[in-house]
């Protein structure tokens, strides 16, 4: 008698999703699926709009990482204009991207995932949230909030507002940086670096406690895809696409981002509104790969900043063999390394005297009918691809969002976790929380909303084949 367990909604993620676990007669998990239950339709309703509206339009995809869309979209528009943006504009865009990375990673680690890590997977769900973290370790919670605030404030200083700034425009940015703003940002960064290093140090000591989770949270062999700089270093704004396989061998390297359609295909399944990107030469679904902090650190040879390079070396030691770090549990670790990298790099860029140059925008009209913009969002590589008519109106859009790249991996990961922890004959809340927690490792951004931390209603039902509820767990809002 087959039965289905449904976790709906999945909590402490950005957006709306549910997980269903199909059980065999024996109670073992037969299949696991991650369903994206919301539909947005950006690729369709952007058609007919002027391409210059695209950065602001597509930024509305998300309230957590609008800067990522703003940048990828503007890069696609730069491509349509066929211009090279001024070097200072590129540096300013990089700073905003790193500030976004900082605030988003802080949100993921402190607000969404630290309740599991600090309070325990089986702890009281009523307290397993940021408020529970505040009660147990107020200083840590305060630091997490502070770190996110610093990232958001830098975005505000540069772009005029924290969410959906319009300062980045096709051709560069619309206003140069002044020294007062530069000083304001530089003043905040030492505190941010101290918090980041302290948190990294703390988490490093906690990792051995999660040996079991590290062994079962998405350790399947997959490829890793990310941007790297021309020198093979950690990169978030530009560079080339690199793909490594599960053994760490380079499968693709120095692929220009505009060449992504050659290597990435998108499959569709009827159980989710999220597409399933795959590596084309290996076909679907064998062409599974992961993106995001784990992939970026696995692919990068170095970070290029002092503390982050030390942390990167320690990150590689998480894997006992010489291959890439395979457990998705270590996304958390990778996020902390990237936070350090982001702060150090912002400091370097802001101290560069040329950052105050006033030439920050190249002006042109649409000179091409097709443009591709690729950058690294906090959750992984993000691709915007537009086609316009001769009058500059959009007639085709393809957006491949970072979380989408991880779709195949997330589905396999929940199957692995469910196999290891879920006993279909008797459900426990902690058991299912682990299934949710593996999804949180990927920090999926399913829309633009991060809902009340752990307070959303959660109803899990265990049904037999006739639909009779044989067990039920309810978490009230």
């Amino acid at each position, binding site marked *: 008698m087959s039965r289905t367990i449904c976790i709906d909604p999945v909590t402490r993620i950005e957006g709306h999703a549910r997980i269903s676990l199909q059980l065999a007669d024996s109670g073992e998990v037969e299949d696991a699926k991650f369903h994206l239950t919301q539909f947005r339709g950006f690729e369709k309703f952007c058609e*007919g*709009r*002027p391409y*210059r*509206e695209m*950065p*602001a*339009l597509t930024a*509305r995809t998300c309230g957590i990482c609008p800067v990522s869309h703003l940048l990828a979209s503007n890069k696609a528009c730069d491509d349509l204009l066929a211009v090279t943006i001024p070097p200072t504009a590129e540096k300013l865009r990089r700073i905003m991207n790193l500030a976004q990375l900082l605030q988003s990673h802080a949100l993921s680690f402190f607000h969404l995932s630290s309740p599991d890590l600090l309070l325990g997977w089986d702890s009281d769900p009523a307290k397993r949230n940021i408020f529970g973290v505040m009660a147990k370790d107020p200083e840590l919670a305060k630091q997490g909030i502070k770190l996110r605030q610093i990232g958001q404030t830098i975005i505000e200083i540069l772009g005029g507002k924290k969410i*959906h700034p*319009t300062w980045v*425009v*096709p051709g560069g940015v*619309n206003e140069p940086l002044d020294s007062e703003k530069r000083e304001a940002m530089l003043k905040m960064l030492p505190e941010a670096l101290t918090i980041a290093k302290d948190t990294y140090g703390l988490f490093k000591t906690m990792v051995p406690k999660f040996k079991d989770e590290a062994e079962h949270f998405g350790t399947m062999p997959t490829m890793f895809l990310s941007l790297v700089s021309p020198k093979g270093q950690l990169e978030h704004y530009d560079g080339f696409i690199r793909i490594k396989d599960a053994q760490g061998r380079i499968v693709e390297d120095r692929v220009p981002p505009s060449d992504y359609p050659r290597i990435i295909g998108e499959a569709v399944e009827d159980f989710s509104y999220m597409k399933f990107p795959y590596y084309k030469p290996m076909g679907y679904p064998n062409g599974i790969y992961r993106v995001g902090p784990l992939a970026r650190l696995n692919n990068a040879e170095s970070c290029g900043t002092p503390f982050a390079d030390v942390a990167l070396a320690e990150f590689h030691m998480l894997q006992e063999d010489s291959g890439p770090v395979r457990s998705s549990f270590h996304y958390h670790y990778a996020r902390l390394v990237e936070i350090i990298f982001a702060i150090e790099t912002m400091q370097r860029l802001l101290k560069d005297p040329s950052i105050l140059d006033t030439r920050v925008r190249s*002006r042109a*009209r649409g000179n091409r009918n097709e443009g591709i913009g690729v950058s690294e969002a906090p959750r992984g590589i993000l691709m915007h691809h537009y086609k316009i008519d001769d*009058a*500059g*109106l959009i007639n085709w859009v393809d957006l491949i969002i970072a979380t989408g790249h991880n779709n195949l991996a997330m589905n396999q990961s929940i199957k692995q976790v469910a196999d290891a922890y879920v006993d279909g004959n008797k459900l426990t809340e902690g058991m299912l929380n682990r299934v949710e927690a593996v999804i949180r490792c990927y920090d999926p951004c399913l829309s633009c909303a991060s809902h009340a931390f752990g307070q959303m209603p959660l109803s899990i039902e265990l049904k037999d084949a006739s639909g009779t509820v044989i067990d039920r767990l309810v978490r009230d809002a």
Partner: protein
Amino acid sequence: MPIIATQPSVRVVTLRIDGQDLSAREDETIIEVCRENKIPIPSLCWMEGLSVVGACRLCMVEVAGQNRLLAACATRVAEGMEITTNSEKLQRYRRTLVELLFAERNHVCSVCVSNGHCELQWLANTCGVDHVRMPYRNSGYAVDSTHEMFRVDHNRCVLCTRCVRVCDEIEGAHTWDVMGRGSDCQVITDLAKPWGESDTCTSCGKCVQVCPTGALVKQGTSVGEMVKDQHFLPILARRRSAR
């Protein structure tokens, strides 16, 4: 020897607006007197320097002794008039009118090049439109981007016809006109040709500058960058009428 301007033989009337005793020339309209005396009355279709059409109905006022509301832009002042410009009823009507404008077409401010510099947005703010109570029509309108320098987005048009009037009365080209009825009504260039193919458009840009929203904009502007300059209009209009 200085030229002495001839004084027109216009009488002066006295009237009361919102309890304030005022005097005005008898050939002035209520909205002109209000503007001179810094009494705020919202308007979209009225613009100093252009003819009056009284289309938007946002400047409706209450006049004592009248059993209906009157458009301040289309009503001349008269001796002893008592006018109320901002009663609760008027506020309610104005808010509803602005909401209807938002519901009719697709004014998505957040992605508009005129965001932050838009008269409709300012009106919504002034009239307290924090949400729209009627269902949006969600009908898609075309964007004409064929002109080398300018673009028209009919989704953001409020049919104030300022563009039609400035093109006809000031520039003298009469490129713009209005076509269709009801919700199909829209401004057109020439005989509904794409703007870029217009034979009559002089590309002067006056229509773009007087447009209150992001319907008529310059090419090459990004979100929030379209700032309009309308100072030229009263000067040109005065010079034209002095001919």
